[in-house]
């Protein structure tokens, strides 16, 4: 890496790959050449909250899926829960509730499998600085064909669950206000049950692999590590809950900030700060304030926050996770992957339970109620707590919409992790493609879905920039498709 006269450097990664979305990173160096500021900018904007206005409320669960093709079901269900309230339904039939859960577990299973096997496993299997040409799912298929195929099939199963319930793997049609539009047939159930033992085995293997990787690389435990607050839903007994529950926020030492908070009052506990350099806002817990109130969501938050998991295999995996941290919270950013696979195992177990539950074949699907003006839905999407909030006019058209998506909640944390990795790995080093990938590895751990976050997905230029303290651009280096670093300023 060359240096200019004032010893200030600028590095660009453009685009960041194996994440979804569009953004860039700027690093600000001080005179001593240490990273003083690291910013993860989100550069896309879609305008969903505005253009939804004037549309009929029942369209919403179908629109919002198009915000994100990776977790469309999460948006579909969060919006459906809000729409249930708009039509005055607070209790769904047992069959509807269980079909929706089944759909959601299928979604979480496929999204987690996609993220680990297709996007992140190459870093963990080959090393963060390994050969760029090989560091991808094609490389994994070549070197570890059995593992790659298990991953592909695990994701496929999740997609099949979705397809059976929603008619289509991506952007299917499943919910109606107060219910579901189709029951599950015995044949469909039996087809899904036919593969579940394999799926349970693959999921258990995925947990074991992640445990092994985490244990065998103690040098990575501090990688992008943050001592943070955590937010997630938990069930009424404190169990891991992906579909419906109360909100629990914890301090880094595990102490509660609040617990069993009703999500319909989310605007009392979360505010979102706008910063001039990103279209993604910065949420924080109102009680702790702007500077200290940021928190992490997603698998790491959920596994840390919950008191237990209701399914046995995932619970024993959780206990090993806890034991690793001596009973406290795990703050290692790369432990997101491990926690994610514990959830995959939980999803597989929960799918099996639901398929064996006689209610799942029921045909009583719709509940009716009195129209209301406001509806708020929540769900634990694969990437974390997701809020959908709608107000309607008398004619049933949308007057106001607000979404707090999971990736937005991790915004400050991703910034902090990028800063930590930049400080540790880029300071005073010769910049190589491999080192730059370290920044991407830190961001990837959060499985950011920047399309969700900006309500716009784009393929992703992440640019890392080093600027002079006065904001002047002092150097420009781009990463070529062959991994070469070229200076363009």
């Amino acid at each position, binding site marked *: 890496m060359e240096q200019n006269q004032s010893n200030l450097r600028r590095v660009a990664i453009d*685009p960041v*790959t*194996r994440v*979804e979305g*569009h953004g*860039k990173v*700027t690093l600000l160096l001080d005179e001593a050449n240490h990273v003083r500021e690291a*910013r993860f*900018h989100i*550069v*896309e*904007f*879609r*305008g969903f909250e*505005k*253009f939804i206005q004037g549309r009929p409320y029942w369209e919403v669960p179908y*629109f919002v*899926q*198009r*915000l*994100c*093709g*990776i977790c*469309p079901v999460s948006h579909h269900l969060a919006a459906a829960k809000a729409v249930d309230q708009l039509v005055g339904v607070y209790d769904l039939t047992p069959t509807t509730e269980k079909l929706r859960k089944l759909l959601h577990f299928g979604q979480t299973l496929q999204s987690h499998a*996609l993220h680990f096997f*297709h996007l992140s496993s190459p870093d963990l299997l080959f090393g963060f600085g390994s050969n*760029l040409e090989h*560091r*991808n*799912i*094609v490389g994994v298929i070549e070197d570890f*064909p059995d593992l790659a*195929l298990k991953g*592909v*099939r695990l*994701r*496929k199963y999740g997609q099949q669950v979705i397809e059976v319930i929603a008619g289509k793997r*991506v*952007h299917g049609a499943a919910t109606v206000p107060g219910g579901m539009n189709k029951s599950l047939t015995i044949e469909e159930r039996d087809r899904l049950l036919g593969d579940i033992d394999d799926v349970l085995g693959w999921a258990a293997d995925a947990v074991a692999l992640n445990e092994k990787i985490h244990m065998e690389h103690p040098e990575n435990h501090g990688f992008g590590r943050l001592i943070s607050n955590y937010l997630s839903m938990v069930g009424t007994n404190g169990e891991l809950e992906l579909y419906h529950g109360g909100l629990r926020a914890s301090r880094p030492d595990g102490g509660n900030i609040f617990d069993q908070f009703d999500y319909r009052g989310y*605007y009392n506990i979360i*505010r*979102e*700060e*706008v*910063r*001039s350099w*990103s279209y993604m*806002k910065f949420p924080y817990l109102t009680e702790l304030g702007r500077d200290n109130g940021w928190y992490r969501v997603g698998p790491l938050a959920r596994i840390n926050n919950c008191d237990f998991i209701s399914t046995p295999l995932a619970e024993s995996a959780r206990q090993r996770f806890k034991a690793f941290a001596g009973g406290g919270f795990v703050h290692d950013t790369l432990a997101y992957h491990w926690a994610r696979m514990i959830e995959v195992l939980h999803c597989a177990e929960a799918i099996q339970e639901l398929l064996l539950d006689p209610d799942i074949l029921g045909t009583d699907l719709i509940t009716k109620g009195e129209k209301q003006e406001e509806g708020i839905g929540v769900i634990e999407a694969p990437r974390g707590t997701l809020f959908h*909030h709608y107000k309607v006019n008398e004619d049933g058209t949308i007057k*106001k919409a*607000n979404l707090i998506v999971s990736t937005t909640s991790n915004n400050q944390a991703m910034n902090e992790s990028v800063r930590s990795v930049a400080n540790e790995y880029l300071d005073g080093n010769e910049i190589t493609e491999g080192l730059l*990938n370290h920044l991407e590895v830190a961001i990837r751990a959060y499985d950011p879905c920047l399309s969700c976050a900006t309500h*716009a*997905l*784009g*393929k*992703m*230029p992440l640019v890392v920039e080093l600027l002079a303290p006065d904001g002047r651009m002092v150097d420009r280096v781009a990463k*070529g*498709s062959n991994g070469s670093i070229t200076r363009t300023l």
Partner: protein
Amino acid sequence: MREVFTVSKVRVATTSLAGCFGCHMSFLDMDERIVGLLEHVEFSRSPINDIKHCDPCDIGLVEGALCNADNVHVLKEFRENCKILIAVGACAINGGVPAMRNHFTLQECLEEAFLDMIGVDNPHIPNDVEIPLLLSKVHPLHEVVKVDYYLPGCPPSADAFVKVLTDLLEGKEPSLPKSMLHYD
């Protein structure tokens, strides 16, 4: 337009502009068939690898509409480098959901999100030099570059991707049977 590929492997690039990634997900929904495809295809720039720029390729698959200056830049790079450019999905073909903002001014959309939203702290519209220029309207691909084929659907099914790629690999004019031709 028809190309007969003589090289051992056909080079394919994919990107997502202002799209939801659902078209890419559907592409991956070919599941195990991806292993067979890899015997004939190698990937240039794609969200699933770390190749950052589109280099000369046989086929470019583009998901999503044009929302900002960056999207336009990436699309032009694809067009220059790809012998065949395919607009994939509703957003790329006619703007799709992103183009719903065309019913409002960009300013209205920004004000709603950053000034008038519930729970917003420090309300202002992000304006840093680091943020690329948003286009005042969202555009489909063919308004900016020449598009060779359109693969409809939101998203197109995995079978449709396989059919189109197989046709092209065999040097045939791609065509979809009615069962794979849908727009939802």
